[in-house]
């Protein structure tokens, strides 16, 4: 299948949603061509509102629209949605539990050349900690396209984290997105990998290589980071001795933290967290950044060998 970015799928899916649901309004802050929210203008230009480069206002305006019964989609880059407008999201949207869907693109370091000022590696942490907020992240375009209509159906605030980079599809056309449940991509036995977003594809590539050398990992795509499918996570954890989390986000507060919080309550075990190691990244090509910040398939292979290999030595 062709490489497609999750933001492309968002634009496509949102067009379909707007076509069938007259209650949807769409806002953007001067990035509608990049986030792809502007695609809805082709369906109905009257429900699209460009709010200019003023993300704080956009979020509170979205809250006002939702307070009037609309389903408000608000898009920007993750940095300016979750970061710049954090407090508006917290107070205008989440506190009154309003029906605003914050669909942020350009999350993580795969933004690439724009550099650290635009590479949001904190948004999962920021959004996850807000009461009433759901946090979703599609692994590929196939999943994003199915996720958006489900987001429309969800009551209350939702944060959807998407990427700039066009990537290989993890899922084929037979995939069925199930809201709230972890997506087991391959059930192995030797080690359990929880991944989210673009890291699902990197982990999948890593697993393909690892199987060749006799290590058979279980790969799980966590598309819904909050509320986490605790039952699914614990059930999988019980079947494995080793657990690794991989995310294109800071290792503080993101997917790894969510999995660790779940396990420490329900099934205490050790978790190895891969992600951005509490540092700002830099400009570069996405693949170069994934390599340097140890988020590519090679780094995952190495980490699995290390964790799994150490265990062999212990025995």
């Amino acid at each position, binding site marked *: 299948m062709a490489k497609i970015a999750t933001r492309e799928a968002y634009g496509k899916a949102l067009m379909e949603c707007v076509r069938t649901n007259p209650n949807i309004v769409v806002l953007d802050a001067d990035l509608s061509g990049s986030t792809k929210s502007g695609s809805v203008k082709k369906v109905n230009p009257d429900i699209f*509102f460009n709010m200019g480069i003023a993300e704080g206002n956009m979020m509170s305006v979205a809250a*006002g629209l939702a307070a009037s*019964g609309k389903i408000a989609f608000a898009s920007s880059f993750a940095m300016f949605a979750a970061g710049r407008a954090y407090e508006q999201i917290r107070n205008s949207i989440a506190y*009154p539990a309003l029906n605003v869907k914050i669909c942020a693109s350009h999350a993580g370091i795969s933004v690439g050349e724009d550099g650290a000022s635009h590479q949001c590696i904190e948004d999962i942490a920021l959004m996850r900690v807000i009461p009433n907020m759901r946090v979703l992240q599609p692994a590929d375009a196939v999943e994003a396209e199915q996720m958006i209509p489900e987001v429309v159906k969800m009551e209350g605030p939702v944060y959807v984290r998407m990427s700039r980079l066009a990537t290989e599809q993890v899922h084929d056309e037979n995939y069925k997105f199930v809201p709230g449940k972890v997506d087991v991509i391959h059930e192995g036995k030797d080690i359990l990998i929880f991944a989210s977003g673009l890291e699902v594809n990197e982990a999948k590539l890593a697993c393909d290589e690892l199987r060749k050398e006799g290590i058979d990992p279980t790969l799980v795509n966590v598309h819904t980071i909050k509320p986490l499918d605790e039952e699914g996570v614990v059930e999988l954890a019980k079947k494995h001795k080793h657990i690794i989390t991989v995310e294109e986000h800071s290792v503080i507060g993101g997917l790894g933290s969510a999995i660790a919080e779940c396990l420490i309550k329900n099934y205490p075990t050790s978790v190895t967290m891969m992600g951005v190691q509490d540092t700002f990244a830099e400009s570069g090509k996405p693949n170069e950044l994934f390599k340097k910040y140890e988020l590519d398939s090679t780094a995952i292979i190495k980490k699995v060998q290390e964790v799994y290999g150490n265990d062999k030595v212990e025995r």
Partner: protein
Amino acid sequence: MYTKEELMQHATNIRKNIIKMVTNAKSGHPGGSLSSADILTTLYFNVMDIHSDNVNSLDRDRFVLSKGHASPLLYAVLKEKGLLEEDLLSFRMIDSNLQGHPNMNYVAGVDMSTGSLGQGISAAVGMAIANKLDKNDHRIYALMGDGESQEGQVWEAAMAAAHYKLDNLCAVLDYNELQIDGSVHDVMDPAPLDEKFQAFGWHVIEIDGHNYDEIANAFEEAKNVKGKPTLIFAHTIKGKGVSFMENNANWHGVAPTPEQCEAALKELGGE
């Protein structure tokens, strides 16, 4: 329509309740609640179409208290209007619906949760856009503080309201010239606010915010403005109605003692 005398009586009752609520809670914001009392009384009794049959509906005029700390005023107005079941003295108490800053999900008649300054006016912009989309004639009202205009978001909202020609939006700016740290002119001078809103594309009406004729005329004028939002720039007195609170920034967010409460109520006309 209520007569001026009737409105003034309601406003006096509202002011007394503000004093009682804040005193009982031993916290809250009396100064800016009292300064906006005449404006909000006129709005709820003679301007907005809100009554017990439509209070839970979106199909009516709506109001956003962008200066959310004036919650005692909003609760007291809703009570005076017969729309609020809660005991006003539960204000700021544990398990009460009357939160320190208003929550729209707890109280019918509170149309937006506010408290963090600058956000309410943006939400009002969103509501006005929604009314335009729905092609209804309902109006959106908002009350802002003058200190609040130091928040950059107010100007983002002002720009958006003019850009989308929201003539169904009418904001009132309670220009009492005091904020918690002192005079707005000393803290971070926002003046000239009338000219700034004009420059942002708003129709601006300057009034004495304690003169009932001027308040009523301004709301009426705003209804007839086409193609742009209206700002009612209301000169007010912080703490209005209680002499020892008037024009004193110290009464921004401090509760009266029981003795001061008694003196205030006496000045407002007994109990």
